[in-house]
């Protein structure tokens, strides 16, 4: 039997004004388990808390009921008081007789009567309370960042600078991501490489950062603070620690006809390659799909020219197992495929290109060495049409486009238009737009500059079709303001393709048990208040894998994710919320209903041995809750038909007792 102390707070006149506190204390004296019931002006004050501690000692109390303000206000305070007095903090229940009683009722009698019921209800609950101890789990002080674009780079640098070890897993041979492919950045027109490559070097040189390039995450087990991750380091057939990045092999390799993905296939590279000059790590990689040596066993030129003896044709995929305390997803985005947009003739004409291809055409390290030349014939285009929202805001068919706004296209199109007019004033530039969306610092000013200073023609309307005719592209579109249909003879058409999450995100989300939305963007724990955390504890989100973002936004989010990771890794131990679900294995059926409704993947099943009748052993499938992952919502408790699953601190019996006390 509990020995319960009831403490009724006046809260000055806040409670005592409409609740007869003495009467409440008196009435609650006769409730079961109550050995002391008293009242005081301010229970939360130093003196009030001392009074509670004294009472615990004097009356050997095992449970406390504080009739006071909302538990959202002072539950934590009184739990600390209880702990200081030597009883379990979870043996405290609060009866909310201020916010939910004295403040809403004017009649003293009514208020007092309700306060008594609320007190009685809390007592009924405390009678069934059990001491709870939050679970503790150690934290591995190392973070994993998946994706080595600007998001992953920034997150890794911030975490490492705070003193923690970080590993970056990047599936490509180099880090850098999409930003490395960009020419200039809006709205400042900084050269992308000039601001990105120093950061890449910082990463490479940072003593607490390891880069696993050309690698992928193979499996993830464990939970917040204790993830066990297997990383597959794909065979690149070059010893990473030996290669000096001199690039001789990439010049001598006889296989010259490999589409260069860095330039989006607009030129070719060799079968052994370094994606770009500033690659990190700057080591060569052999493309096994094209290497003659690997395919036929005949060639070996790269091996012969390599003075460092770094080539190893026998290399195999390597598996690395590592423990991490936190994982950051920074898997980024890709432009969607234009194959399904026949109306824009993307697959029919080389001169219809995407904006990312345009970036490469404008880039000094690109296929045209920075000269704006038409891909088909290498001639300088004089009339360029940009089409916005290609595949964005496209609700009609899911396999074609995306329902959302890709967010970055308005700005980069303005940038492209402006740069074109700046470099080639003889070029006429037209932009078809549905809306120009430029919320952001200096964004609208930037767009207006394109129009006002650079004379870019913005036409409100959409292009209906593009048809190649001779060496021209006939762009047919509507001008909604002039109420005309336009037919423009263009030399080059640039499509602002919608962006989508990288395809690797979906299987990764499954491994991480992190939730995704219907578009395969990672879902945040709370759209407003926890935007860089996944609902799954220990998983954080950085950059465009969470939603379309431009560079400044990505970097801020990357920093925010890093701050969250640092906050986690700074702890030696994680103290869980003790109010978690618990499965009674004797009653569990193993039906998986609870597992299906758990938003955190906290429930797992295993076959366990049980003693059956007549010294037999029965093996049954039963659920168990990982207390470090469970957040205590209780959804599983209702999904469980037998009631095997219950929630500590909010047990079925406790809630039933509250119901009974109210209805008494």
């Amino acid at each position: 039997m509990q020995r319960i102390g009831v403490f009724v707070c006046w809260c000055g006149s806040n409670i005592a004004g409409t609740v007869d506190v003495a009467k409440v204390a008196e009435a609650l004296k006769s409730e079961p388990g109550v050995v002391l019931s008293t009242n005081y002006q301010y229970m939360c004050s130093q003196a009030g808390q001392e009074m509670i501690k004294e009472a615990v000692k004097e009356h050997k109390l095992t449970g406390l009921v504080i009739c006071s303000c909302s538990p959202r206000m002072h539950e934590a305070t009184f739990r600390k008081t209880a702990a200081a007095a030597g009883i379990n903090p979870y043996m405290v229940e609060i009866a909310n007789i201020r916010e939910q009683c004295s403040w809403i009722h004017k009649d003293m009698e009514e208020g007092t009567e309700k306060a008594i019921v609320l007190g009685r209800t809390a007592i009924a609950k405390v009678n069934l309370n059990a001491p709870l101890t939050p679970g503790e789990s150690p934290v591995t002080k190392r973070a994993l960042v998946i994706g080595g674009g600007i998001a992953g780079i920034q997150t890794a640098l911030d975490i490492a600078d705070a003193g923690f070890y970080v590993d970056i897993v990047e599936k490509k041979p180099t880090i850098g991501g999409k930003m490395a492919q960009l020419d200039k950045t809006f709205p400042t027109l900084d050269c992308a490489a000039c601001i990105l490559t120093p950061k890449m070097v910082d990463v490479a040189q940072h003593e607490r950062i390891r880069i696993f390039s050309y690698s992928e995450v193979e499996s993830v087990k464990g939970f917040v603070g204790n993830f066990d991750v297997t990383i597959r380091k794909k065979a690149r057939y070059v010893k990473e620690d030996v290669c000096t990045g001199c690039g001789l092999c990439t010049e001598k390799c006889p296989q010259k006809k490999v589409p260069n993905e860095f330039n989006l296939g607009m030129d070719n590279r060799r079968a052994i390659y370094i994606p770009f000059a500033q690659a990190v790590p700057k080591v060569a990689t052999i493309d096994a799909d094209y290497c003659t040596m690997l395919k036929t066993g005949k060639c070996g030129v790269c091996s012969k020219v390599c003075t460092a003896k770094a080539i190893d044709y026998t290399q195999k995929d390597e598996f690395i197992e590592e423990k991490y305390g936190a994982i950051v997803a920074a898997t980024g985005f890709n432009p969607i495929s234009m194959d399904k947009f026949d109306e824009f003739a993307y697959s029919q004409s080389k001169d219809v290109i995407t904006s990312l291809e345009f970036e490469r055409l404008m880039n000094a390290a690109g296929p045209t060495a920075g000269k704006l030349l038409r891909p088909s014939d290498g001639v300088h285009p004089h009339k360029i049409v940009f089409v916005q929202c290609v595949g964005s805001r496209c609700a009609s068919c899911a396999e074609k486009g995306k329902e959302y706004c890709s967010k970055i296209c308005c700005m980069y199109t303005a940038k492209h238009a402006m740069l074109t007019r700046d470099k080639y004033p003889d070029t006429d530039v037209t932009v078809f737009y549905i809306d120009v969306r430029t919320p952001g610092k200096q964004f609208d000013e930037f767009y207006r500059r394109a129009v006002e200073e650079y004379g870019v023609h913005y036409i409100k309307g959409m292009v209906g079709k593009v048809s190649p005719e001779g060496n021209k592209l006939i762009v047919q579109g509507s001008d909604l303001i002039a109420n005309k249909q336009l037919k423009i003879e263009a030399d080059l058409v640039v499509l602002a393709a919608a962006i989508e999450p990288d395809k690797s995100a979906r299987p990764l989300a499954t491994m991480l048990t992190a939730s995704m939305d219907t578009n395969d963007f990672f879902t945040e724990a709370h759209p407003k208040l926890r935007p860089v955390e996944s609902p799954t504890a220990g998983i954080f989100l950085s950059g465009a894998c969470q939603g379309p973002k431009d560079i400044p936004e990505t970097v801020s989010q990357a920093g925010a994710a890093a701050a969250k990771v640092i906050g986690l890794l700074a702890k030696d131990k994680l103290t869980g919320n003790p109010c978690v679900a618990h499965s009674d294995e004797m009653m569990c059926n193993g039906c998986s209903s609870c597992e299906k409704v758990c938003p955190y993947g906290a429930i797992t099943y295993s076959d366990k041995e049980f003693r059956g009748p007549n010294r037999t052993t029965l093996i049954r499938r039963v659920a168990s809750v990982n207390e470090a992952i469970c957040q205590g919502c209780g959804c599983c408790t209702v999904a469980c038909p037998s009631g095997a699953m219950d929630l500590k601190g909010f047990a079925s019996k406790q809630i039933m007792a509250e119901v009974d006390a109210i209805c008494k």
Partner: protein
Amino acid sequence: MQKVTREMLIEKASALLAEGKVDRVLGWKNGEFSYDVTPFVFTDVESMKKDFVFGDFAFANFSKYLIKETKKSENKVLVFLKPCDTYSFNQLLTEHRFNREKVYAVGIPCDGMVDVSKIKEIVGDGIISVESGDLIKVETLYDGVKEIAKKDVLAERCVNCKSKKHVAYDELMGEEGEILDSNRFDEVAKLEAMTADERYAFWQNELSRCIRCNACRDVCPACTCEKCVFGNPNSGVENKAASNSFEEKMFHIIRAFHVAGRCTDCGECSRVCPQNIPLHLLNRKFIKDINAFYGDYQAGEEVGSRAPLTNYTKEDLEPSEAVNKEEN
């Protein structure tokens, strides 16, 4: 449809036993009366020849028995499944209640089972024996042998049969049937059309007869909890017998709720109820609502499907819309 006979089933079982493919056969044998057919585990051909029965009274859905039976031996157990039984079979697999590897399932066609209470309505008490067939031969103490057309005494659940198709088996005897358009929700709709007072009176009358014998729970292939919530001391609702009219309601509402989305509508609950309470009308209400609110869903149709109550969409209807729909 090809009729599967007792002899064919014995022959099939004998062959499988002889091959060593199975070491037990889950079958039917006569109980106290020939219309009171009961499940039995056979281990040899001789006893099957002696006691095995099959016919218009072989109601028992064996799926639930597999939970315990599959744990008893390393060998497979042979089970005969009527189309409606296969849904329960799948549902239990979905819930990981038995090991599929330990079962050899033979699908058998079914042209409906006979409700003995309907026969009693015609011939009165004192039935000595019944013989299956399109014309049921009933011998009574007082009137000798009488023949009754099977279609006139089909069980309610068979009149409204939802499927003649087997959704699970290792081997099928006879021809495969089809999923049927049944009128099984008509009675629910009729109740829905009544006023609240009439419905209350209807259920008060039905449920007040409940003696809390738990037969519905014990036979239900969805009620396979290791321990029922009503026997779980931590559930806060532990009780054995009802002491007033509400507790029966609570028991039956909770039971129906717990099997909602998992109930395959096999009808066993109503069959075994000694008080003849139409319990299936509670389950069917949930099934009808689930179909109407969240799209058609047949529990057990597919192994591994996600039950409607462990699923959601962002556009689900509000509880207030759920009750107001009834009005219209």
